[in-house]
C-alpha cells in the first residue's frame, strides 16, 4: 500500500529561501548538458542554500533529466553534502589515526566546549558547527582541522580556541 506515494516531502526551506530556487536554476543551466555533473549540481545547491533541500533535489532531477531517487542517492553517499542547514564555518576535525594519536580528541572537545554544541549541531548564530571526519590528508598538520576548505594545524586545545577567536573576529 503505497499510501505515501506522491505525497510531497516536508520542505526544509526557510520562508525567504524560496526565491533562491531561481538562483539554483540559473546555476544548473551550465551543468544540464554536461554528462555526469550530478555532484557539481549538488555543490551548486549547497552554495545557494548552505545545504541541499528536497526542493533542490527535485529541481536537479528535472534539469539534469535524472530520476529523483538517483540524485537523492548521490546526495546521501558523499559526506560533504548537507541535508540540513549548515553553519557558515564548518569545522571538520580529523578523527583518524595520525591526528588521533597526536591529540585530536582534545581539539574536538575544546571546540565543542567553547561553542557549547555537540558534533554536527549548528550554533544559534548559524556561524559554527563541528564535524568529526575521516582523514583529511593533512597528516603533516596533525591534529588538523579544516574550516570549510581552509587548512589549519597542528592544533591543541588552546590553539583551537584561538582559531575560533580568529573566525569570530572575521565576523566582527
Amino acid at each position, binding site marked *: 500500500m503505497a499510501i505515501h506515494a506522491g505525497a510531497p516531502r516536508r520542505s526544509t526551506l526557510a520562508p525567504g529561501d524560496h526565491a533562491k530556487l531561481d538562483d539554483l536554476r540559473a546555476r544548473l543551466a551550465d551543468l544540464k548538458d554536461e*554528462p*555526469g*555533473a*550530478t*555532484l*557539481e549540481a*549538488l*555543490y551548486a545547491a549547497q552554495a545557494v542554500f548552505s545545504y541541499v533541500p528536497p526542493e533542490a533535489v527535485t529541481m536537479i532531477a528535472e534539469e*539534469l533529466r*535524472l530520476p529523483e531517487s*538517483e540524485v537523492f*542517492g*548521490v546526495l546521501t*553517499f*558523499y*559526506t*560533504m*553534502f548537507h541535508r540540513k542547514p549548515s553553519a557558515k564555518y564548518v569545522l*571538520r576535525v580529523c*578523527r*583518524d*589515526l*595520525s591526528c*588521533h*594519536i*597526536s591529540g585530536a*580528541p582534545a581539539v574536538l572537545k575544546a571546540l565543542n566546549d567553547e561553542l557549547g554544541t555537540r558534533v554536527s549541531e549548528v550554533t544559534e548564530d548559524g556561524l559554527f558547527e563541528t564535524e568529526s*571526519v*575521516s*582523514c*583529511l*590528508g*593533512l*597528516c*603533516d598538520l*596533525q591534529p588538523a582541522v*579544516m574550516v*570549510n*576548505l*581552509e*587548512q589549519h594545524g597542528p592544533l591543541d586545545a588552546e590553539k583551537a580556541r584561538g582559531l575560533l577567536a580568529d573566525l569570530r573576529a572575521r565576523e566582527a
Partner: protein
Amino acid sequence: MELVVTKNFGNPQSWTLESYRKAGGYQALEKVLNEMTPEDVSELVKESGLSGRGGAFFPTGLKWQFVRSDPKTPRYVVINGDESEPGTYVNRYSLELDPHLMLEGMLIAAYACNATLGYVYIRGEYGLAHERTQAAIREAYEAGYLGQNIMGKEGFSFEVTFRRGAGAYIVGEETALFNSLEGKRGNPRYKPPFPTNVGVWGLPTAINNVETLSAAPAIIENGTEWFQNLGHGEATGTKMYCLSGRVAKPGVHELPLGTTARELIYDYGGGVLDGRPLKGFKPGGASSAALGPEHLDAALEPRSMAALGTIMGTGGVVVYDDTVCMVDAAYRDALFFEEESCGFCIPCREGAPNLVQICERIMHGQGTLDDLDLLEDLGASMMASFCGLGQFAHQPVRGAVRAFRDEFEAHIRDRHCEAGVCQFANNGRLA
C-alpha cells in the same frame, strides 16, 4: 639524490606555468611529440619499471599499451587525485605545488594511449589543490598544451575536464571513481573487464595516480637507466614517502623506492617524538598492517613488505611510540573502514562494524581470547568482499594482533592497558 617528482617544490610560485617553464617544463612533451611514436613512449616507460604509486604498483607502460590496443574510441586518461588513505598526503603536495608536472605526465600518457579526453579528479577536501590545478589547466589551454593540435603537432588533441569529489574514501578505488565521474554513487564495479578496456563511460581508460604521472616527464628526459638507478634493484625510481603520527618531524620526503623505515623515520623524520621508544610503524596508510621495531631495516617497497605480511601501500608511514595503545590504534582503523565502507557488499558492510565491536569489547575489558581467533575468521570472511576496501579493512586489526599479541592479551586477561589509553570503566562506546 636527484629528485623526480618533487624537484620543483622549492621554486618560487612553483605551481604557475611561468615557474614550471623556467624549470624546463613541457620539454619532455615536446621531445615525445617530435621524436617518439606512442609505442616508443609506452615501451620506454615499461622498461623504466615505473609502476602505480597509488599503492597497486601495476606497470604503468603496460597499462598505457593496453589502452592503446583497445580499438574503442574515444580513449581516456584519468588522474586519480582522490587520495584519502589515513596517513597519506603526498598527492596533496604535488597538486598544490606542481600541477603542471602532473599535466605534462598526463599528456605524455595521452599520447602513448592515443587518448583524446581526460579527467582530473581530486578529492573534495583539497581546496587549495582545486584552485591551483584548475588554474594550471587554464594556463595549459592558453599556452597550447591542451586543446587541438597540441604544440603544433598535427592530429594530437587532448581535452581535460576538472572534477572534484565530495567526501568518500572508496572513490579512490578506480572503478568507483568512474562512477563518481559519471555523477553516480561511488560504488565499485566488477572487474574484469578492467578499466584499460572498459573504464569511464565504458571506454578504454588509463587511470593513474598523480605521483605516477608526475614521474613520466623525467623518465622521457633522462632515460630508463637513470630512473632505474634511482631505486633499489627491481624497485625502480623514487617514492614520495610521508611521515605522521608520533614522529618528531612529520613531512614528505622523496627517496629511492626501497628506502628502509629506519632511514625514513630517523634520518629524515628526526626520530620518534620527544625521543620516546618506538613501538612500531605502519608502512603505507591505514590498510597496511603495522610492524614492530624489529622490522625497521626492511625496505619500504612492495616485495619486501609483502614478505612481512603487510603492504607497501601509499607510502604513508605512521609512527607509534609507547603512548599509543595498539588496540586503540586497531580500533581507529576499524572505525575508519566502518565509516567508509560503501555498503554495497555484505562481507564489508557487516564485517567492518564487527571489527569495531570486537575491538571495543577488548578495550572495555570484556574481550576473550576467543575474540582474537574470531578476528582471524572474520578477516577470512571479509576476503570475499567485492573490492579492495573490504579485502584490506581487516588487515590492520589482524596485523596488530599478530605483531602486538601481548598487548591484546594484557587487555583481555589483566584488563591492563600499558599505554594507559583504555580505561575499562566505560561501558559505552568510546568517542
